[in-house]
């Protein structure tokens, strides 16, 4: 820094040109500025638009891709929700179907049990009735047989024991009972 200040001072003191003091060719500098401006113009006119267009296109493609990805994500999420919903509905339907099946099975089982019970009761009742009938018939048969035996025995005894006197007593008793009527 002190060196540069020294150069400026020396240049001013000698009464010469500052650019010359700094070692700069002013005309060369102007040409370079003009060349630079031409370059900037040229670039701005022909290169930058192409680059910008390419960048814009690329940006649009990237944005489109990003949108597509976003949309795909949204669709995937929606599909996942829909699938989950369908799965939930299917699970619910399956649970309902199982519940209904259980209830129907229970009802069928209860009906079958009831029917079997009624059938068994009917069989038992019929058997009891049959037994009762058989028992009644056996009793009746036995009663008749006993009555016949008693009558036969009584007939035999009466034939042996009933004499004229006893017969007269029987007749008197019968006549007396008839008169009382």
């Amino acid at each position, binding site marked *: 820094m002190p060196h540069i200040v020294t150069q400026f001072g020396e240049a001013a003191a000698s009464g010469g040109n500052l650019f010359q003091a700094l070692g700069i060719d002013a005309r060369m500098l102007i040409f370079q500025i003009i060349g630079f401006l031409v370059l900037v113009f040229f670039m701005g006119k022909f290169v930058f638009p192409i680059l910008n267009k390419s960048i814009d296109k690329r940006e649009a493609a990237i944005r489109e891709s990003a949108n597509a990805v976003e949309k795909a994500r949204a669709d995937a999420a929606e599909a996942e929700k829909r699938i989950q919903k369908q799965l939930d509905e299917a699970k619910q339907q399956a649970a309902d179907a199982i519940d209904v099946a259980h209830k129907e099975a229970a009802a069928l089982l209860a009906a079958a049990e009831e029917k079997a019970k009624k059938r068994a009761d009917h069989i038992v009742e019929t058997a009891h009735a049959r037994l009762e009938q058989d028992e009644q018939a056996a009793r009746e048969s036995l009663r008749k047989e006993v009555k016949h035996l008693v009558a036969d025995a009584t007939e035999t005894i009466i034939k042996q024991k*009933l004499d004229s006197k006893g*017969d*007269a007593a*029987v007749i008197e008793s019968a006549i007396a009972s008839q008169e009382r009527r």
Partner: protein
Amino acid sequence: MLKTSRRTVAKVIADQLLNGASSEKLMQQLAGYLVKHGLTKQSDLYLRDIESLLATRGHSIVDVTTARELSDSLRKQITKAFAGQQSVVLREHIDESVIGGIRIQTSDKLFDATVSEKLRQLRA
């Protein structure tokens, strides 16, 4: 000869019996009538009608069936049992199959107090 109704024939015979006509002669006439008209199978019905008519007029004919012959005492008791009648004629039958007791039958009633009947009722 016209065929007369059974009821009329029975009434004529019953009237004549009550008027003192010979029963033997009336029965002979009845038998002739039945033979002549081919009514011999109905002889029991004619006799039953005659007995029924006599019973309504106080004269009963009672069929008594026993296993042994009745004593006079029993006959009196039986006759006494028909106290409402002017006269009672006992027609006695001996039937050992009744074993004992008595069966009394009129034209419209039957009283069976025989041992055989009691045994039959017991067997029934």
